[in-house]
Structures are given as C-alpha cells and as structure tokens.
C-alpha cells in the first residue's frame, strides 16, 4: 500500500492542487480517463465541502487529503477540522422550476459523490468529518459489468 498526502489551508484555490494531484494519482494506478474525471469531481466536491461546511473558511483549519493506493483500489480520504455533522443527505438533486425560482442553486455535491465513486463512507465527530471515497480498480472497466 502506498500513500500520498496533500494538506491545504481552507482556501478554495487550493482545491485545485488536490484536484491536480487526483489526476496524477489516478493515472499512476491506471484508471481510465473517464473514471479520473469522475473521481476528480467527487474529490473536488468533498474538498469544497470540507472548506465551506467543515472548516467554514477558517484559514488556520486544514483539509487533509490522503490517497491510499493498493492493488485493488484507490481510496481518497478527505478530513476537515470542523465541528462534525449529524446527517448527510446523498439523495438525488436536480435542477427544477422550484429551486430555480427560490434561488437554491446548490446541493449537488453529495449526489455527485454518491454517483461517481464506487463507494463512500462518512465518519464525523466534534473533531471533524472524514469522507472516504473508493474506486475499485478495473471494476467499471470489466466487460459485462
């Protein structure tokens, strides 16, 4: 098992550092271009949530991202130093007349995460939230799957 760690302050510009790292790690484990795009989006959403909702943009609070790679899977753990969260809603969210009119233009992040990775785990306490995203290698590329 190999581990790559990226640690950023709660400034959304550094989400791009994590995203670029995701591309390289994804290529290193041989993911297809499409799965790398999927993973990048999921990681981007999780990091932005850690910055926005977890650390609430307090720059002294960090977001720690660990990429753990082995033969079967790539696991990405995104940890914030927020106060934790009781419940997360991963349900499908779409653009519709209602939310367009009410100005609700957010809330797609967790739905993207759910759809774009193979599995996803949350653990949260008053010391922060960790979101673990997993892609199983070759799972989606396997024929007849």
């Amino acid at each position, binding site marked *: 098992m190999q581990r790559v760690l990226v640690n950023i302050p709660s400034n*959304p510009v550094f989400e791009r550092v994590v995203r670029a790292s995701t591309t390289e790690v994804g290529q290193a484990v041989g993911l297809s271009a499409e799965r790398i*795009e999927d993973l990048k*989006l999921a990681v981007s*959403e999780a990091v*932005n949530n850690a910055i926005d909702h977890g650390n609430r943009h307090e720059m002294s609070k960090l977001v720690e991202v660990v990429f753990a790679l082995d033969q079967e899977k790539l696991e990405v753990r995104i940890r914030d130093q927020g106060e934790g969260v009781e419940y997360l809603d991963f349900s499908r969210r779409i653009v*519709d007349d209602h939310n*367009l009119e009410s*100005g609700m*233009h957010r809330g797609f992040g967790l739905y993207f995460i759910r759809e774009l990775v193979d599995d996803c785990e949350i653990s949260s306490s008053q010391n922060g939230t960790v979101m673990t995203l997993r892609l199983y290698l070759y799972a989606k590329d396997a024929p007849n799957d």
Partner: protein
Amino acid sequence: MTDEVISREEFGDVAVLHIQTTSVDAISAAAIQAACTAMRPITVLDFADVAFINSAGISALLKFVVASRKGGYKLFAMNVSPHHQKIFKMVEMSRFMPTIKEEELATYR
C-alpha cells in the same frame, strides 16, 4: 488571472459567450456569472476550453438559466465534452440549457 474569463461574440439576436477558463469552479464562478447580466434573445455558452466543472461552477451556470427565464431568452450550451454532458444530464441541467451544434448556430448569422 488578469485574462478575461468570458469573451463575447455577437451577431443578430445571438450572443456567444466563450468561457476562457479551463476550470468552472468556485474560483472562476464569480467572473463567469457576471456575464449573465448581458444576455441576448439567443445566448450560447461555449465550453470548448472547459476541462472541469463542479457544483460551484454549475451554480454559476444556473444564474444564466434564471436570467434566461426572466428575460424570455433562449439558452444553449456548445462544445460540451461527453463527460460534462453526462454531468449536465445527471442534474437535468440539459433540460434548461440544451446543447446546440456550431453548424446550427450558423443559420442565425
């Protein structure tokens, strides 16, 4: 950072807004959505240079959807990559901002 994020091209009733940044995200969102105040009866967002869009970016794009509905304008997306077509379908964005081909636009010139 000093480069324009959107470059405009206009002809007849049409405005084509070429998104010049590769990343439609939290960082570029403000500069992109600023352009939604100057739409035309037919407004086309050109994604040719866009390599990445996340939900912060979608939220900026929804400002164009809202403005097009308010103004009674037609809104289209052009040169959307297959990955981003998938993303737009997932959230049914494609219903409010259907894809148009460069060739189809030519009829308006």
